[in-house]
């Protein structure tokens, strides 16, 4: 009995010690399989990533992604890639840290500066569109909507945007500096409803923004109904602008199309959603192209040799 116990303990210890010190010696082997990590189909980051690598079909369809992929959340991908030498994943730029290697995309480093100066391309714009001048239900609604747009460009607005993981644009003014220009916000607006719609990827940011802004602007009532980017323009200036679903302010998580050009000064950008492809620190890969990533996620590249040229 004692001998058996001793033998069992010895085996366990050998296995545990062996497992703990296993990976140090060998280094990166390009003949190994690529392990693909992804977010689940309801994720906005996934939608942004897939559209960034020109593989939008896979945003909500798991069967288009290479067999044997691993589904994790943002943090889960980060910590898994820190362990998994042969993994590749993507996270929002805001969560990138030194435990993993953030890949250059089309030879551009993934940094905040490169996002804001528009050289880093694995990103999508968060745009807004408001109704045409004079086409709001009332003068008050128009004033509040315009005050909200002005709020987007303030440091207060930028803080909220960065807090939700997006990259805010440059801003220099506080809301307190410019609020004198928007006298409507001094009045009691608690009976006025402002309707927000469009992209559902922007919903969280938009809700956080209105939640912070409503108390600053006479407690107007924000109503959010986010149904997709194409409804952003359609329901403010497009075919549904006078329908039941009409909105005061719409959002689109992509550039506006040629068919979505509105009246002067009614459209603009509030933020960038930047995504970064990440690999293990020991990985030889440093730069990827959109085509590389598409090939990896669709399963055209199976081993690392395929991706590292």
């Amino acid at each position, binding site marked *: *009995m004692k001998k058996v116990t001793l033998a069992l303990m010895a085996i366990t210890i050998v*296995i*545990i010690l*062996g*497992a*703990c*010190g*296993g*990976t140090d010696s060998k280094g990166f082997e390009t003949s*190994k*399989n690529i*392990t693909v*990590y992804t977010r*689940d*189909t*309801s*994720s906005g980051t996934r939608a942004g990533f897939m559209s960034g690598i020109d593989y939008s*079909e896979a945003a*909500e*369809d*798991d*069967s288009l992604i290479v*067999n*044997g*992929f*691993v*589904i*994790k959340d943002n943090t*889960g991908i980060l*910590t*898994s*890639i820190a*362990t*998994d030498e*042969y*993994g590749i994943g993507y996270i929002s730029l805001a969560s990138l840290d030194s435990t993993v290697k953030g890949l250059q995309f089309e030879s551009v480093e993934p940094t905040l500066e490169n996002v804001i100066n528009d050289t880093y391309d694995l990103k999508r714009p968060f745009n807004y569109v408001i109704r045409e001048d004079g086409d709001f239900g009332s003068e008050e609604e128009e004033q509040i909507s315009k005050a909200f747009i002005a709020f987007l460009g303030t440091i207060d607005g930028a803080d909220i945007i960065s807090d939700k993981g997006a990259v805010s644009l440059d801003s220099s003014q506080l809301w307190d500096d410019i609020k004198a220009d928007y006298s409507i916000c001094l009045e009691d607006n608690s009976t006025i409803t402002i309707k927000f719609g469009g992209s559902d990827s922007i919903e969280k940011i938009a809700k956080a923004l209105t939640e912070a802004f409503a108390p600053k602007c006479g407690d107007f009532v924000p109503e959010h109904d986010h149904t997709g980017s194409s409804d952003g323009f359609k329901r403010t200036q497009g075919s549904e602008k006078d329908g039941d679903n009409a909105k005061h302010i719409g959002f689109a998580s992509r550039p506006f199309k040629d068919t979505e050009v509105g009246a002067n000064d009614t459209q603009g950008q509030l933020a960038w959603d930047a995504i970064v492809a990440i690999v293990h620190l020991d990985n030889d890969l440093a730069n990827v192209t959109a085509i590389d990533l598409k090939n990896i996620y669709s399963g055209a590249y199976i081993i690392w040799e395929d991706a590292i040229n």
Partner: protein
Amino acid sequence: MELVNKFSTKFAQIKKRNKKEHIDIVVRMFFLISTVISASFILIIIVFISMKGIIPFITDNNGIGSVNVIRFLTGSIWLSGTAFQSNLYSVGFIIINTLYIALLSLLISLPLGVLTALFIAKVAPKKLAEFLRTVVELLASIPSIVYGLFGSGVILVFVYNFADVLGIQSKGGNSVMATVLVLSLMTLPTITAISEVSIRSVGKDIEHGSLALGASKTQTNFKVILASAKSGIFASAILGIGRALGEATAVSLVAGNAKSGPTLAFFETTSTLTSTMLEGLKETTGIDYDIRFSVGIVLMVVIMLTNVILNYIKKKVGNVDVK
């Protein structure tokens, strides 16, 4: 006079009895009410989940079309086609994954838990036993998210490196093995605590009888005490497997959430009914949301069937029959 006295004592007795009976009735009603309340919650939950869960099968889900029940119960891909536009959901492989994982984790935690219980109840000195009992109780009360964090921080790395030593490339450790290890850890305290109580409650006379017949302590512990306590040990296994089947948070952090299967290989990603329900739950809408309630129905049925089967086996083997 005597008659009056007799009557009055009789009357007093009746009155006394009536008062006692009244209290009895009130207390009984009180018990009944609490039972009805707690039982009705279970009923309400079952009815609520069933009502939500049946929607994908009986409506056309806003034009997507209803989900085919047979395909749902037997398929090997969670969702074919684009989410929110497809009705081709299946949980067949996930049911197998779930049972497989629960069984494997029981294979680890049951022997380990029972031996620990035996040690605490019969072998360890009194003070040490007291201490260990507290430790086990503490372990049982650790919330599952903590086990999940431990799993994703430590067990995933361990499994990844372990697979590497064996020459297998695992997916960052997200695997059947990691899930089984986490679940074993989680079910271990439950199994230990209940087994320990049942081992302690084995009659001293049986133990002394065995020792008097010349059996050693070890022989007595394994052949007499464990055999006598097997009903309680089985009960602990039932509770343990219930926890393993129902655990969501910790599992979804280490399973890798495979979308097709079933997965039998130790180092491949897997998914359970609960991790599938949890994934994206807070973000999703429409059929993709409702279908999670359908998975919930399947989970409840699986747990119920497992319990019924295990209870049947328990009845078969559970009598104190010392050989």
